């Protein structure tokens, strides 16, 4: 009653409307919510993996005597021990460690691209996006090699009860252990790989836009930030996939 200003003014707190309460644009919020839902999709797959693994017998003998058998879930070190160009050597998890490093490096370059975007430094954004695309594509290439090796199989293969041997794996049979092991490997790493591939496509799109100066004209590089969120998420998911398939 004393002043007319308070008479007409609505509340202006953080959640009182007319602003962005989480200090994020709608696009960024949307990306966050999409990632939340995608996390549930991946979560379901990893739980499926955990349940399948739990349902099968673990290998109980000595690690040196390990052979592939449908009786037990294989030891990851014995499955993923090949390295391109180093034929016949036993290098447990060496290649997948390299792949993981490459993907984590791509996350670092992505951070640098976003940071360059905040400084409105077009050249730096281009440079770091290009590095990210390169690392992402390399990761996909590594995965292609890993899949090829997994499908082709080892020289010994698996001895079946009737004396025949099977080599490699596909969706119905598997030299490394129970068929479900291969099914889950193909499905989950494939689903993740699809995400990486879409990420690389998105990165190429924003790279082209950056080169054409679209974001510079717009006055902000938020699109780089949004794709960055997606890229970090895919990276984070890989850490979980890696843990489930290769470590435990």
């Amino acid at each position: 009653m004393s002043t007319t200003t308070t008479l007409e003014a609505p509340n202006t707190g953080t959640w009182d409307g007319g602003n962005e309460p989480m200090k994020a644009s709608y696009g960024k919020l949307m990306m966050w919510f999409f990632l939340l839902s995608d996390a549930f999709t991946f979560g379901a797959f990893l739980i499926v993996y955990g349940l399948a693994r739990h349902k099968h017998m673990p290998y109980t003998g000595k690690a040196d005597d390990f052979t592939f058998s449908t009786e037990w879930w294989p030891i990851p070190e014995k499955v993923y021990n090949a390295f391109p160009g180093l034929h016949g050597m036993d290098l447990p998890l060496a290649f997948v460690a390299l792949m993981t490093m490459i993907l984590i490096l791509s996350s670092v370059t992505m951070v640098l691209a976003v940071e360059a975007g905040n400084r409105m430094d077009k050249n730096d954004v281009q440079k770091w996006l290009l590095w990210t695309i390169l690392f992402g594509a390399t990761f996909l290439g590594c995965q292609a090699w890993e899949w090829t090796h997994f499908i082709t199989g080892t020289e010994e293969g698996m001895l079946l009860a009737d004396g025949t041997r099977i080599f490699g794996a596909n969706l119905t049979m598997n030299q490394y252990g129970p068929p479900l092991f291969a099914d889950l490997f193909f499905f989950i790493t494939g689903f993740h790989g699809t995400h990486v591939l879409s990420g690389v496509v998105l990165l190429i799109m924003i790279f082209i836009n950056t080169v054409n100066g679209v974001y510079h004209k717009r006055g902000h590089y938020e699109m780089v930030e949004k794709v960055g969120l997606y890229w970090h998420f895919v990276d984070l998911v890989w850490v979980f996939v890696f843990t489930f398939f290769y470590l435990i």
Partner: protein
Amino acid sequence: MSSTDIAIHQTDMHHGHDEHDHDHDQNFIEKYIFSQDHKVIAKQYLFTGIAWAFIGGFLSVLFRLQLGWPEATFSFLEPILGGWVQNGKLDPEFYLALVTMHGTIMVFFVLTAGLSGTFSNFLIPLQIGARDMASGFMNMLSYWIFFLSSVIMFASLFIETGPAGGGWTVYPPLSALPQAISGSALGMTLWLISMALFVVSTLLGGINYITTIINLRTKGMSMTKLPLTIWAFFLTAIVGLLSFPVLLSAALLLIFDRSFGTSFYLSDIYIAGEALSNTGGSPILFQHLFWFLGHPEVYIVIMPAFGIASEVIATNARKPIFGYRAMIGSLMGISVLSIIVWAHHMFVTGMNPFLGSVFMFLTLIIAVPSAVKVFNWLATLWRGNIRFTTPMLFAIGFVSIFISGGLTGIILGNSALDIQLHDTYFVVAHFHLVMGAAAFFGMFCGVYHWYPKMFGRMMDEKLGYVHFWLTFLAVYLVFLPMHYVGIAGFPRRYYNWTGFETFNIFTDLNTFISIAAILGFFAQFVFLFNFIYSMFKGRRSPLNPWHSNTLEWTTPINPGHGNWPGEIPTVYRWPYDYSKPGAAEDYIPQHIPFSETQSSNLPQERVLE
């Protein structure tokens, strides 16, 4: 009189034309087909939902004919069903397909897309004071992906092997093996593709709803000044965002099992005397993944109806909603609980009884927030100045049906009782009341209430009353007897039960249920007529026909793209200032500042003046 009428028409037409002109000259396709205007998208969802509802209802009439008159011949159906009627008898596998498609269509295409899609799209921007959704383009995409999904599901009705027939829950191994029944062949593949697209559409829509509510509220519209409709849509979208992705996971794994030879859900199966090579999988796994969506889904269906009913009851009782914050709290409680009770659908799958009792405990807790809501609605009605408009009748009917259906939920939630009642008509009666009919009543309530805002005209009250009473009676006449046959052990999904001595005594009751169901179905044509007729010939709506407080009634009668021609109104008060003592009228809209209502301000509101 007639000359005035013509004059009104002319000015209106002129006005419409004007708007069209300065609205950056959209052509027909941009304006009505690939529109990014949330109001048009909402209507698209509504029309598609109504079309689906009639298809779904028609399917139920077909199988009710079989259940009500098991010995009769249905040669008269041959012109529409063709090969599915052999010598006047419905094909048993087609019966299963009918039940499956009825469930799928009603749960997903009508009560999820048709209800949430329509009212979230229509009301969120209008009630929070936004020009449109956060992303109009994604909103449009959401509808058109839903449309594509609809087309695929619709097409599956016409293929030679018939649509999916393994029940709306599509449990493997039945659904995973095309050689098992004809309903697991191409129809099932199309079902899975359609549902995968449906999930994508729901996620696109849901992300938009959540973001819009967080970021686009007008000045002063704090979270505790939001109408309860918006709270309901907000939490529905969040629950959908967390549970639908898991259905996507389940469906993708099932697609792989069906088409690419994996064994996620399959193990040790003999079919036609032959052993399948699949080993290691678990069909129970699918049930867990499915019900992780499936249970929240029933709340996705019913929560928008909660919101709509709350709004309509408060408006038409001319009273503030009782326990506004308790209403929000109970919605939140239901949202959280809905995600952690899924295994109560699986009590008889051989799960550990201890785990069963944990899920039973959590399930029964849902009775608490549900009861809070029911008592709040009743307390809002209590000594209200009730206006029995059509939407109000449907809102009260909703409360009645929700109570009737909810009470049996307490019985079914008990893992011990569930052993007897599982897969009987008791379950069918329970969920049809509590989520089927109740959600439908919420939807009707919303359509009658916001019809003036959608089309600028009122729906006919008398026809509305006829529609309400016929529907209300039919619902109870169908589902009350169903409880009774269910307790007697009558199993659901049986094509023919005349071979069982025990169930023969229920022949008359089944015929009765079928007659009521068919009458109920035909009552919906009253609605359809009213809906279409009023669009062209209905009484013209005033600016605020229900004297409601929310912001959508501050827009022009036919709002253009952008909703408010001038500035978006600012919000000063909650949406339930009905019959405030000392106020000039019995409602004070949200955009009226306290300085203009000094006679009615409460002591704590004086500081806001």
